[in-house]
């Protein structure tokens, strides 16, 4: 199983390297991004890397500085969905009693672990943000794989006390990692990683700024999963390179007077996660309606640069300030801000099946965007389980939504 996945990644890597070679002067932003993502996959399945399975809100840059190949478990769910193989893993977990109404990312991960498709890590680090389901998967994996588990509790509110508490936990986390790798945290390596993170951050801010242009250099394919996966590259040279390629490509597109979707007519905001398996919806939006997904909720920088002399405090602030953490009003404010900044005509909320923290806010998010005149299409789709994808119904829903958008002028476009 592991060998099969490794081969799968290796095939993609060689394919992409060849394509990039064919066009060495091009920016190749998405190819470089995909290459880096797949290289991570290779390292996870190599059998020789020190691997850590983690939750979403774990500082990947710190782990990179400590020589650990780390990733959030949901990555495997997404990869399986993307490769078209996820069905049998979901079935395996459901037959073992995992309720089918829980999040597909997590069911896929349990199924993968049951079928020996999840590389055994050195250790595991859970994070309580964004969700309870994520923490539960980590507990289950820790038992199934008999590995030590560290739990990072991300406080709800950002204040002096909570930041100090999380910073303290992060330091303990590094001690936990050292105990398992046999290597202490090297201050110089940490500093270097933090510098890379800051560089990546600055470049990301530029990328997201460029995407605000009307028309936007962004499009659905380019920006799919971008922000979430970029977090995995923080702290590394490779991360800087990938985001720089994006910045350069966007800059060049804008300078050429071109746009991510030619003749862009409508600007959409995508909420939370993309649908991970191959589906025709984004293509349909772009080709038939010239509707571009110019911003994803999770493609944004909400944290300030890391203070190199006190990185743990900055890292704590970074984790707590994610707008998926804390009260939903933070999330709504963030979405309203994005809608204004990107001059959005409408928003699409896939309402991922089984997602309590995210989809559980559906009504409040819709009301919040409604306050500023932005309509929301709620799709009700399982972003990982392709077995239940009702293409016809989703198409109809999106088409009707976009047709509605075409007939009205967005209040946000009128402002300067």
């Amino acid at each position: 199983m592991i060998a099969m996945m490794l081969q799968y990644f290796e095939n993609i890597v060689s394919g992409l390297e060849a394509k990039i070679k064919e066009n060495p002067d091009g920016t190749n932003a998405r190819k470089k991004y995909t290459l880096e993502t797949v290289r991570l996959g290779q390292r996870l399945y190599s059998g020789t890397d020190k691997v850590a399975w983690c939750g979403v809100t774990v500082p990947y840059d710190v782990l990179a500085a400590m020589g650990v190949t780390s990733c959030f478990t949901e990555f495997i769910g997404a990869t399986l969905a993307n490769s078209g193989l996820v069905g049998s893993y979901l079935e395996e977990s459901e037959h073992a009693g995992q309720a089918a109404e829980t999040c597909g990312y997590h069911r896929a991960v349990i199924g993968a672990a049951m079928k020996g498709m999840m590389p055994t890590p050195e250790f595991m680090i859970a994070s309580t943000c964004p969700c309870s389901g994520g923490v539960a998967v980590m507990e289950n994996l820790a038992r199934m794989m008999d590995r030590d588990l560290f739990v990072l509790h991300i406080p709800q509110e950002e204040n002096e006390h909570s930041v100090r508490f999380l910073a303290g936990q992060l330091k303990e986390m590094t001690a936990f990692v050292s105990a398992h790798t046999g290597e202490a945290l090297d201050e110089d390596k940490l500093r270097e990683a933090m510098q890379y993170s800051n560089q990546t951050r600055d470049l990301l801010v530029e990328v997201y700024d460029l995407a605000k242009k009307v028309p936007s250099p962004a499009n659905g394919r380019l920006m799919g999963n971008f922000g979430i996966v970029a977090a995995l590259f923080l702290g590394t040279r490779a991360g800087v390179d990938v985001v720089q390629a994006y910045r350069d490509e966007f800059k060049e597109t804008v300078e050429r007077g071109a746009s991510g979707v030619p003749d862009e007519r409508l600007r959409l905001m995508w909420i939370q996660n993309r649908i991970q398996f191959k589906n025709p919806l984004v293509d349909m939006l772009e080709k038939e309606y010239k509707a571009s997904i110019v911003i994803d909720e999770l493609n944004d920088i909400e944290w300030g640069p890391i203070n190199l002399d006190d990185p743990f405090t900055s890292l704590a602030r970074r984790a707590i300030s994610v707008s998926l953490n804390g009260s939903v009003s933070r999330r709504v404010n963030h979405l309203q801000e994005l809608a204004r900044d990107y001059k959005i005509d409408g928003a699409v909320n896939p309402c991922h099946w089984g997602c309590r923290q995210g989809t559980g806010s559906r009504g409040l998010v819709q009301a919040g965007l409604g306050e500023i005149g932005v309509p929301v299409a709620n799709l009700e789709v399982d972003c990982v389980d392709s077995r239940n994808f009702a293409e016809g119904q989703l198409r109809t829903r999106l088409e009707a939504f976009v047709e509605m958008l075409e007939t009205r002028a967005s209040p946000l476009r009128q402002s300067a």
Partner: protein
Amino acid sequence: MYYLGVDLGSLSCDAVLIDENESILASSVVLTGARNREAIAGATADVLSAAGIDEKDVAATVSTGYGRDRVERRTAAVTEITCHARGVTALLKGTQVLIDIGGQDSKAVKLDGAGQVTDFAMNDKCAAGTGRFLEAMARALEVDISELSDLDKGASGDLTISSMCTVFAESEVVSLIAEGVEVNEIVSALNRAIATRIVALVKRISPSINGNSVAMSGGVAHNAGVIRALSAAMQTDVTVPPQPDTVGALGAALIAKERSRQG
């Protein structure tokens, strides 16, 4: 001495009469309709007259099915899970797993060698995987439900019905017909859809079903196509006892005999 089992289900009321040797003297299946009392009286009267015995010679009566509390002259009410388990073991010794697909629900029951239940799983919330699903599909295909049994003959088996929900699956079938997809392919896909639901239920009580002795009861046991799909999905034979509709009533009668011993 005689013992009576009455199974009052949503679609039919079944009665079975046995004697001291546990031989089946008579059985009856009557449509429940809206009048439970009449259905119970009718089924009971049928078996008594067929066996030529009087009501007062019935030593004990056990009722089962969702309407079991409505059978007035009962010694005890016992769930259909327990009754089906007893009934199927009497007809097919050594049954390890029983699958019962009724009109409104489906069950998977794990048995020890002697017909005792050791675990069970039920689906009674969702029409998918029950007789209702097939009724809806028969409607969409404009065939009689009794015709569905062999309509999958010759299908390649490449088509999949993706909808989890009966209502959406029906729409999907209508679309497929409009697209000109062959009826046998559609029926084959429907059989596999039911099989998938049922296998999930079975795995809850028997993770390694392969090699187990599996029996089936309930109305859908008449559908050879579904049975074929189930066998294929579980990679194990599925045996249907004679008179699959009265398995529950038979089990109830056997329990009636047991209970009257205990007095």
